[in-house]
């Protein structure tokens, strides 16, 4: 049994806005083991990126973590000051953002930018050592060593994204968060990048947190997964179990609304309506207004919300289990 690298317990986070507090993350708990890849899936606005930002303590100025704990290797990240966090970021936990390939500084060579990140954390390392390190990283993500001396505009989108992955790995983090790293890319290049990430993860024994709206990508990339809806996790468990025996109505609808090129062409189910506003407190089941077949329990707001264990390691939200 490998040990837990990252554990998040009862995380609550809200944004203070003009129209009121937006509760983006509600009571989210999960843990990631060493060498494991964990997927977070949900619609846009469900809070998955907010979770990623809280993990790095990089949330926006108006975001407040009201309660909960985030522990990286037993070290509490919530409440750390900026200089302590700087050490943890990149070194302990790093991130590949959505569209990060556009984040390269256009006038500095790619290699120099990665070198700078390493220097920030390991000032004692020599330039030659760093170059060697970058070369090996580039090799790992399928880039030519010559790319070190290239400017970002000389690279294609896929190459820039590979280099971003190398940048994320440059300080040997224990946990890498990948927040929709392939969304802006073409299918063919997405496929290559996914393979690259998978390969690197296995090679280095990294823990990966993969965030996506695309359930097909999650299916291929992760061992454990959680489905988020309206700020909370509605189903969590081993990916295979979640796909084979989805318990929550939302998970089931997500699975049945994803077209595939493989297998019989089947009628897809559509999910009507909009996710609820996160400003107002949601009483009862957050999904019941969109649930195609809400059970009587669903509409009964008194019922206690929360995850219940359905089979070992597989939890689903109490309210919408086996309806819809």
């Amino acid at each position, binding site marked *: 049994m490998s040990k837990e690298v990252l554990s998040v317990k009862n995380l609550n986070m809200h944004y203070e806005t003009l129209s009121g507090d937006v509760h983006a993350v509600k009571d989210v708990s999960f843990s990631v083991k060493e060498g494991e890849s964990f997927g977070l899936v949900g619609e846009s606005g469900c809070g998955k990126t907010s979770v990623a930002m809280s993990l790095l303590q990089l949330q926006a100025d108006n975001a407040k973590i009201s309660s909960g704990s985030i522990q990286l290797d037993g070290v509490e990240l919530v409440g750390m000051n900026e200089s302590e966090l700087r050490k943890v970021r990149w070194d302990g936990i790093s991130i590949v953002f959505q569209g990060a390939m556009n984040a390269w500084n256009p006038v500095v060579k790619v290699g120099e930018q990665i070198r700078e990140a390493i220097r920030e954390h390991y000032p004692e390392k020599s330039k030659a050592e760093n170059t060697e390190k970058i070369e090996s990283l580039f090799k790992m993500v399928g880039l030519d060593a010559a790319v070190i001396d290239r400017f970002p505009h000389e690279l294609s989108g896929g190459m820039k994204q590979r280099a971003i992955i190398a940048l994320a790995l440059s300080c040997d983090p224990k946990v890498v968060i990948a927040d929709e790293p392939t969304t802006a890319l073409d*299918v*063919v290049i997405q496929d290559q990048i996914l393979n690259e990430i998978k390969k690197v993860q296995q090679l280095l024994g990294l823990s990966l947190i993969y965030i996506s709206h695309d359930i*097909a990508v999650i299916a*291929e990339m992760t061992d454990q997964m959680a489905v988020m809806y309206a700020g909370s996790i509605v189903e969590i468990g081993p990916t295979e179990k979640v796909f084979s025996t989805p318990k929550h109505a939302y998970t089931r609808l997500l699975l049945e609304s994803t077209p595939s*090129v493989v297998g019989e*062409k089947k009628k*897809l189910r559509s999910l009507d309506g*909009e996710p609820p506003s996160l400003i107002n407190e949601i009483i009862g089941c957050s999904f019941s207004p969109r649930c195609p077949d809400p059970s009587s329990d669903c509409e009964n707001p008194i019922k206690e919300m929360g995850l219940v264990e359905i089979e070992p390691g597989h939890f689903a939200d109490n309210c919408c289990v086996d309806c819809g």
Partner: protein
Amino acid sequence: MKKNVIEVKNLEKYYEVSGGFFSRNKDIVKAVDDISFEIPFGESLGLVGQSGCGKTTTARALCLLDPKTGGDVKFYNNETENMQNIDNLEDEELKKFRRNIQMIFQDPYESLNPRWTIKDIILEPLNIHNIGDLQDREEAVVEILKTVGLTPASNYLPRYPHELSGGQRQRVSIARTLIMKPKFVVCDEPTSMLDVSIRISIMDLMLNLAKDLEVSYLYITHDLAVARYMCNRIAVMFNGKIVEIAETEELLNNPIHPYTKRLISSIPVPDPSYDRKVYDVNYDELDAIIAKHGTDNPMVDIGNEHYISTHDVKGLI
């Protein structure tokens, strides 16, 4: 004999690009290079390919947004019920003919004028073409909103686009497109900006409308899985050319062209137990076809109305 809504023959769209500030010679970029297809009544064709392969350029040329540089395009004319070439139409006739062609855009946030109300947006085509009196037009707008599932209409008419969600906006776009009762609609990735859960309801709506109103779509997408759901036939585009075109299931189950194979094998499958093979590009099958038919004919039929391009693509994929 099947009736077509559009027949495209050898469509070309070339751009001249100057070689740089000091260079005098001009390069020609063949964004769309000699493509041909036709769409029969009530059927939809998916145009699938990577970004930059020329699929959006094709769409814009067919919608007369950018002039084509070569080839022959014939549209079905609703009034005369004949195929018609519109290259030499006068301004007034061309304006009249534009009723037959409509387009749905990718980005629901950019395709509706943010300063107009939903009512004005949907009314615009009727106003441009001066169809019916005011009351007729307003009734038509209410009717079409009902058709696309935005009810009650009075709740949407006075609103501005930014007050609606992405899915609702895309429904408004569809309503605006269909109010002219076109038979041919070009859809440029209409669901790619939408959330998964909303995507299917928009796709279902479009499929139902296609059946009820006898609309044919040219459905442009980078996602083969979406194209499979929406289209009867799929054309795979690569480097400005159509490399393979066939019935949807035939294409997915029996791909011949290496690029098609590559594309199909790249798509993630929503099933963790499915073991997706990485496709190793090989040209054997294509070479065999070229050897059999020669390269004189740009597209060869290998049976089942399955066409393969014999164009040399070695080293490009």
